[in-house]
């Protein structure tokens, strides 16, 4: 092991152990809202940062998706054919040129940077308190889908809409095994680096649309 490691750990170990017994615990706020309130808060937070939330149902979401694609002028849509939603999309594509994530690794990056107008992903769930989507990208829905194309469309089912991030982490026991990359997404990419004034669409998607499916 490296000398730097040994030296740093030795210095830390030689110090007197800080006593924290006198420091009180404190606590974070907890919230328990019913589903209507969770949906209302989620939508309010999302729209406050210029994301769009389209409320729909298990029966009508394909029409909603098609309307979104038309509105955004998306000629193509990148999606995973492996999910339950993907199977439906494959049968009735909402755009002229649907693209599945089975693309070869060699063309993956170039296609995302130069060709894809919009990408659709599922989500692990949502957070009402902050208006947040939780994503665990995987082989079927890789990381760049929610990052590189100008429009990101995300499907959120209301049964996975949690009150808070803390509640979601505890309920799904994230500590038992984290994925390569876990993401919280709360709106389209933005910056306030110039005069503390918000500008949208900096490096990530310029637009975020949430298909909120009530079930």
């Amino acid at each position, binding site marked *: 092991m490296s000398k730097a490691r040994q030296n740093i750990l030795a210095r830390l170990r030689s110090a007197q152990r*800080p006593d924290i017994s006198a420091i009180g615990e404190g606590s974070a706020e907890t919230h328990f809202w019913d589903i209507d309130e969770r949906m209302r808060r989620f939508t309010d937070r999302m729209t406050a940062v210029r994301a769009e939330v389209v409320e729909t149902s298990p029966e009508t979401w394909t029409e909603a998706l098609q309307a979104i694609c038309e509105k955004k002028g998306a000629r193509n849509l990148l999606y995973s054919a492996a999910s339950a939603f993907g199977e439906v999309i494959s049968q009735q594509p909402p755009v002229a040129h649907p693209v599945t994530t089975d693309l070869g*690794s060699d063309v993956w990056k170039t296609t995302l940077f130069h060709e894809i107008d919009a990408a659709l992903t599922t989500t692990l769930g949502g957070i009402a308190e902050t208006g947040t989507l939780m994503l665990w990208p995987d082989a079927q829905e890789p990381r760049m889908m929610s990052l590189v194309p100008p429009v990101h469309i995300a499907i959120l089912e209301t049964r996975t809409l949690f009150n808070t991030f803390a509640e979601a982490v505890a309920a799904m026991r994230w*500590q038992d095994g984290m994925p*390569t990359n876990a993401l919280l997404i709360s709106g389209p990419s933005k910056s306030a680096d110039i*005069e*503390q004034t918000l500008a949208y669409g900096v490096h990530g998607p310029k637009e975020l649309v949430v298909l909120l499916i009530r079930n």
Partner: protein
Amino acid sequence: MQTTDAGFDIRIRDALGNERVRGNFRRAMDGLMQRRLDLFPDAEAMESLRQHGMRIKASALSRLPELLEELEAKLTGNGIRVHWAETPLEANQIVLDIMQSHGATSMIKGKSMVSEEMGLNHFLEQRGIDVLESDLGEFILQLAGEPPSHIVAPAIHKDRYQIAELFREKFPEIPYSEDIDELTQSARTILRDRFETAEVGLSGVNFAVAETGTLCLVENEGNGRMSTTVPPVHIAVTGIEKVVEKLEQIPPLLTLLTRSATGQPVTTYFNMISSPCKPGEKDGPEEVHLVLLDNGRSGIYSDPELLATLRCIRCGACMNHCPVYTRIGGHAYGTVYPGPIGTIFEPQKGGLDKHGALTTASSLCGACGEVCPVRIPIPNLINRLRYESQHSDGVTPGSGSKRKRSEAMIWKAWSLLYRKPLLYRMMTKTATRLRMLAPGKAGPWTRYRTAPKPAARSLHDLARTHGVVDE
């Protein structure tokens, strides 16, 4: 390391004389303070959350060596390579070695204050590596050849007109614009290609979770995600104090950080990285490295009071609320970390002899301590460091280096005078009689003030005349 004490007075005077920069800071800080306040509507809940945050960070520090080992073991198990560096130079060399092992000559960077601390850009550029900052603020500063003036909003000292001028100079092919949206879109276009082609991406770390071996990054723009997702190699650099024990401690720290820093309920992205890309995954770096930097932190760790400095989660609220920082701005400090946290962190890291003057840049109004999300008693620590800069029995490097013989003599005489009644009476008698001889000028003190003159009669004398007999 260079000293920042030399020229501190001059930098302050220049900053105070620059109305444009002062206006830029004033507007930005007023906005940030208001936004933070709006997100903590319930004072009691805020105090409880701050206490919670303090406890989490203090408890992590109490087990720091064990948690670092646990973090290393977890990360290694997840496939992330861990490197240790005692000094910025060692850390820079580690980064360079990784790049050279891949024959890489280009790097895209997400925002990282530790990389500023390392002077990484300069180090790599001197060795022929093309380094590009991708955070909008940092990108602007790299164009301007300036260091950040704020740890969260690095280009806060510039207004849109200065940035428009800079873009015109550096990118003459882009149509001139003073519009913030258009400037932002220009930066997006310029940086897109670079994200696609960069061989190595570098980022900082906001929290490192020992329990799961997870590196957490907080951002709004997506450049942090780009830098850690698109290039085939990702190198993260961080200070050893960023480790926390459990994943369940992340949600409260995240909300404290984003609300305190920019008054946001949450940032656009919270990016949690636990491994390089796994077999079958189409994107994400094949290699992920973490460089753990000490750079004086283990020294700070050895003192039970000063240790609180290491709780810092780098939200910048202390500078947003500091009356001194707001007026002189970040560059006047001359250090990587400006503002109240800089006035305590930099002298401990680099020595009171080199950065001790920073501790004088405070009115001890207490605002920084009041807003700190992890309750670092910054004003107390400033006082402690002021004391150490005058007394060689301190634990901080450079203790006693600010002691002046003449000043020490004056305080000694003062103390003697007040301890010996006879001497005290003689002194008041002489002072009242010879009051006309008191000097009219007393160095810098009288530059903007009238020199004090002893009264014709002492307070004791007046009290006696008025029949006050009690002491």
